[in-house]
């Protein structure tokens, strides 16, 4: 009997992936480093990407999220209070290029509620990242220069943030028209989504808010005052993050899925970036995300550390 012939027949019916699956996989591979463009129309992509990045330890507990007790607040008042609180913060010294930005996050997937805790280190100059791979080995990897990427190193964020105007109106105009966030990330084969300027201003200002390690206090205050001026921005109290902590839920688009940036009610730092489905989402005739599904990144810890592998 010909062994190679029998071997050739074994699992010869293994399929080639369909176009849809390939497309998702392609995005997962060609996409730039961080999922900044998490707009609902791209959500399936974003979800795939988040799964792709690094899978670490699965934590078993998944909490259902009661969000109904959230209380709407006067967003202008709350944001002004936030601005006044943060502008008093002392200016943090600039990290050294060889220091690391440490982040520990909990990710929740909307399809099945699967949670993953991820610890990652990004060198201040952005030249290396570190973390645990799928087998639990600690790895430091070089980050090759990638001119098409929209994401920045902490160092580059600092440089960018220091140049921004601290007048709220000027700040909105600046971020709404910043070519960096309009043109990038440059992705082959992925339809380009261009948001309305107000939406871009909201997205980028909330993205900047996450750059806590390099945020100048005066700019942070200006960001809160600018957010108060963007049409449609709202705040709810008692919004729960995926670990059960409550905070101030900042959002702009009321429809489903609603994306909250959850702020710590004491420090006004970003605790979580979280989407919640207010109704079933149907695609291709199937419910892909049920009402109440949550897609979240929750910040469990972050800080500047001297070596990769150290927690903040």
């Amino acid at each position, binding site marked *: *009997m010909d*062994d*190679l012939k*029998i*071997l*050739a*027949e*074994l*699992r010869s*019916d*293994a*399929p*080639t*992936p369909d176009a849809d*699956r*390939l497309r998702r*996989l*392609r995005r*997962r*591979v*060609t996409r730039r480093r961080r999922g900044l463009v998490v707009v609902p129309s791209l959500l399936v992509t974003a979800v795939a990407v988040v799964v*792709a990045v690094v*899978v670490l330890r699965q934590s078993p507990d998944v909490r259902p999220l009661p969000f109904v007790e959230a209380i709407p607040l006067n967003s202008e008042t709350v944001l002004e209070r936030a601005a006044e609180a943060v502008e008093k913060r002392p200016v943090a010294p600039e990290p050294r290029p060889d220091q690391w930005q440490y982040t520990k996050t909990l990710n929740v997937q909307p399809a099945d509620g699967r949670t993953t805790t991820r610890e990652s280190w990004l060198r201040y100059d952005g030249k290396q990242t570190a973390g645990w791979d*799928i*087998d639990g080995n600690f790895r430091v*990897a*070089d980050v*090759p220069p*990638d*001119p*098409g990427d929209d994401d920045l190193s902490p160092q580059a964020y600092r440089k960018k943030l220091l140049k921004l105007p601290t007048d709220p109106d000027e700040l909105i105009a600046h971020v709404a028209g910043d070519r960096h966030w309009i043109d990038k990330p*440059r*992705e*082959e*084969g992925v339809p380009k989504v261009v948001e309305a300027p107000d939406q871009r201003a909201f997205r980028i200002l909330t993205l900047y808010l996450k750059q806590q390690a390099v945020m100048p206090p005066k700019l942070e205050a200006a960001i809160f005052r600018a957010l108060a001026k963007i049409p449609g921005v709202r705040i709810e109290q008692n919004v729960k993050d995926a670990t059960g902590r409550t905070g101030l839920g900042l959002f702009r688009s009321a429809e489903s899925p609603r994306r909250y940036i959850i702020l710590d009610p004491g420090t006004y730092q970003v605790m979580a970036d979280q989407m919640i489905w207010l109704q079933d989402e149907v695609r291709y005739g199937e419910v892909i995300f049920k009402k109440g599904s949550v897609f979240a990144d929750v910040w469990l810890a972050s800080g500047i550390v001297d070596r990769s592998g150290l927690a903040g």
Partner: protein
Amino acid sequence: MAADVSLADAELIQRSRRDPAAFAALFDRHAPALHRYVTRRLGDSLADDVVAETFLTAFRRRARYDVSHPEARPWLYGIAANLIGRHRRKEQRFFQALARTGVDEVAESYADRVEARVSASAAQRDLAGALAVLSPEDREVLLMIAWADLSYEEVALALGIPIGTVRSRLHRARKKTRAALGGVDPSALVVDAEADHG
């Protein structure tokens, strides 16, 4: 993208060093077959992860690609082989189970749920018994040739081993598969490990 069709892989990789987007064309060219190959080895559920990691790794290493090789297939399958190798105990268990029970979990992972269970022939079960007891190195060479349609030269390139070693590994692997199909217990077979010279 149409303009890229005629470009050799090496040219795409070279281009991607300046323009990372060019790498996407390499994905389009090789991902479908690679995905099928990984599915065939490890099942449907691991295929996406292994293929994604293969291309992400390849992307990171693109500066080190030797552009004197116009075809990148061996390079990509070599990267994939390492990643598949991380699951070698799992792969081995699948073959063992197939040999013992006739149920192939890998085939079931991609078969339509409404279809009847996939049942293997007696010959396939014998073959699986041999595949389960091959050394990972020998199995890699055999499956690269049988399932990925790589030539001896390409396998050598993919695994970074001399072509004589490819031949001897294949020879050793096939001694066991043939024996198993001939009714001999492949795990009891003593195969000359010093056949590495070709």
